């Protein structure tokens, strides 16, 4: 009816606001009526009315955008629903889930890639965040400026524009990162050895994970037999399946600002006299960190671990910008959400996509529950 997309969305927004007002009034009146039936006092009735009036935008949204969609997607995950086709929806039982878990190599690859990010990227990110936080926690001038600088990547973080800048920087031949590595390696031969050793370890690690997802370890054996890479080797960030995930890890570590702020808050909470007492007893800074700060930080480590793992399971933008449709590479970097996007919005397999969503949801819940169960063994709540 209306061709102008801007005017039409404004009209729709106004309709939505009117809808919210009407449903809120209806819900609130209903709540007051029920309160009246339960013989509540006049003030209680008023509060019931006001409470439901103010809260119902969320309640209505929760029903429309969360409860009903989750219900439908659970149902569709047992069907062969395809949005483009006119054919009726058929109930196919657990077929989608069975196909996902046993026959779908892309989905398996996406889970294994997530494991790589969780086992390598997350510890690195947390270590860097903790290190920066400890460095910043020294009561000095200009601390705020540094804090701002370290948080900046979170703000820019996953914007496509910044990701493309990383793509430029990570170019194998002419990218600035590899050029810097070359320059440093040429200047200091010792660093060259360290660099080659790191490349070797990383490629072995990566080949191992690729081996699991391809169910064939020939690549791993080849890397293992080739031994230490040649002297002029540089990382092939976005050009080799052995490195595609490492580039994402680099991006993740770069964006550690949120975790750093949380660690910083934790460090601020540790009473000063703990450290002073230990210092009087002659404990050095290193020992004080491991014996005092680290255990008392464990609730914050736990929090970052949970949030970080959930974030790893939901990663999408870096994969999309760096590797979309990059045929030999995408399977080495594909994430669960990228795969979900690909099968739902390119293949229009709604039933299959729903099954993927439910599996992601279940994986996140299980991982979080395991974390909460394990925390009793190592998280220290003495301060709280």
């Amino acid at each position: 009816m209306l061709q102008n997309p801007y005017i039409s969305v404004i009209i729709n927004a106004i309709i939505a606001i009117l809808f919210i007002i009407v449903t809120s009034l209806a819900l609130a009146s209903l709540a007051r009526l029920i309160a009246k039936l339960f013989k509540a006092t006049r003030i209680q009735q008023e509060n019931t009315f006001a409470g439901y009036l103010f809260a119902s935008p969320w309640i209505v949204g929760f029903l429309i955008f969360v409860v009903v969609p989750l219900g439908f997607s659970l149902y569709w995950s047992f069907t062969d629903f395809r949005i483009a086709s006119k054919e009726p929806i058929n109930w196919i039982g657990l077929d989608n889930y069975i196909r996902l878990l046993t026959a779908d190599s892309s989905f398996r690859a996406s889970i294994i890639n997530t494991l790589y990010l969780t086992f390598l990227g997350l510890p690195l990110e947390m270590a860097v965040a903790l290190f920066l936080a400890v460095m910043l926690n020294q009561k000095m001038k200009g601390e705020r400026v540094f804090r701002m600088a370290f948080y900046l990547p979170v703000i820019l973080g996953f914007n496509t524009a910044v990701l493309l800048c990383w793509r430029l920087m990570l170019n194998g031949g002419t990218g600035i990162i590899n050029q810097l590595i070359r320059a440093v390696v040429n200047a200091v031969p010792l660093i060259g050895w360290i660099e080659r050793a790191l490349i070797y370890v990383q490629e072995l690690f990566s080949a191992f994970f690729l081996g699991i997802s391809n169910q064939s370890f020939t690549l791993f054996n080849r890397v293992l037999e080739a031994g230490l890479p040649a002297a002029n080797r540089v990382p092939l960030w976005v050009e080799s399946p052995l490195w595609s995930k490492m580039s994402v890890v680099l991006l993740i570590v770069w964006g550690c600002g949120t975790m750093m702020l949380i660690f910083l808050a934790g460090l601020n909470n540790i009473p000063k006299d703990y450290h002073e007492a230990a210092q009087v007893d002659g404990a050095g800074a290193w020992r004080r960190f491991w014996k005092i700060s680290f255990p008392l930080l464990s609730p914050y480590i736990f929090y970052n671990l949970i949030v970080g793992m959930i974030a790893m399971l939901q990663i999408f933008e870096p994969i999309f910008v760096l590797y979309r449709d990059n045929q030999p590479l995408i399977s080495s970097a594909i994430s669960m959400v990228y795969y979900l996007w690909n099968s739902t919005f390119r293949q229009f397999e709604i039933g299959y996509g729903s099954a993927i969503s439910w599996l992601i949801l279940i994986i996140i819940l299980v991982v979080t529950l395991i974390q909460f169960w394990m925390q009793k063994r190592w998280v220290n709540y003495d301060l709280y």
Partner: protein
Amino acid sequence: MRQLWHILKRVFLYIFLTGATVMMAFPLFWMISSSLKTVQETNSAGIVWFPPHPTLQAYIEIFRNEIFLRSYFNSIFYTTLALVGTLASIAVVAYAFSRINWPGRNIVFFLMLSTMMIPAQALLVPQYVFFNKLDWINTFNPLIIPGYFAGGAAMVFLLRQSMSQIPKEMDESAVMDGASHIQIFWEIILPLVKAPMATIATLLFVGLWSSLLVPIMYLQTVDLYTLPIYISTLYNINLTVQPWPTIMAAAVLTTVPLMVVFFFAQRYILDSVVISGMK
């Protein structure tokens, strides 16, 4: 001696932190520097830290590009419209959870907190089908309207925490004077939570401005592209890849609003990110 050691430690600390700052900010510098280069310089085998003869050619090209300008407008338009409604509804709902005593409040609040466990991606597929039924594909509606229902439980939680800390006497005396909840909300509570509102507005802005997954699902015609979608098409190995200076010029112009907002809001954000513990 001890004094000297102390000074030395400080010097090392500052050197280290400055180095870390340079590394953190480097992509930004590289983006700006590359946008001023020629194509040869971006692909050169030697390091060109900063082009010897900076050229604005890439910016001239990108400003002549109608699709880019249109995407820029679309991004501003959709971000503003979504931001205003989301912020308003979050404030209203946070008020209900902090300043009014109503039966069922704790249950509803617990429900809201538990939705934080549901990854947004799990809802994408059914929502897509739902919006498809409403004929909302290729409109901005799916990007904007859901936010109007207080989208973002974490944000509601953050604001509720701030509102709860305001002493009860503030509104009790207003109730004595016969003020309604709408008056209390608007005239007493809202002015007291300006700082957390600024934080939430910034975080919402950053999220909306950079959002890619949801816009790319619904906006399929070039006319409706937002900036992240448009920029992602500049580098697509199946189509022609644009020259790097052009891509970087577009990238710089995309990040400018983020930088400006962050610069003005950093004093609110850096403190309250810790409280809320999220991006």
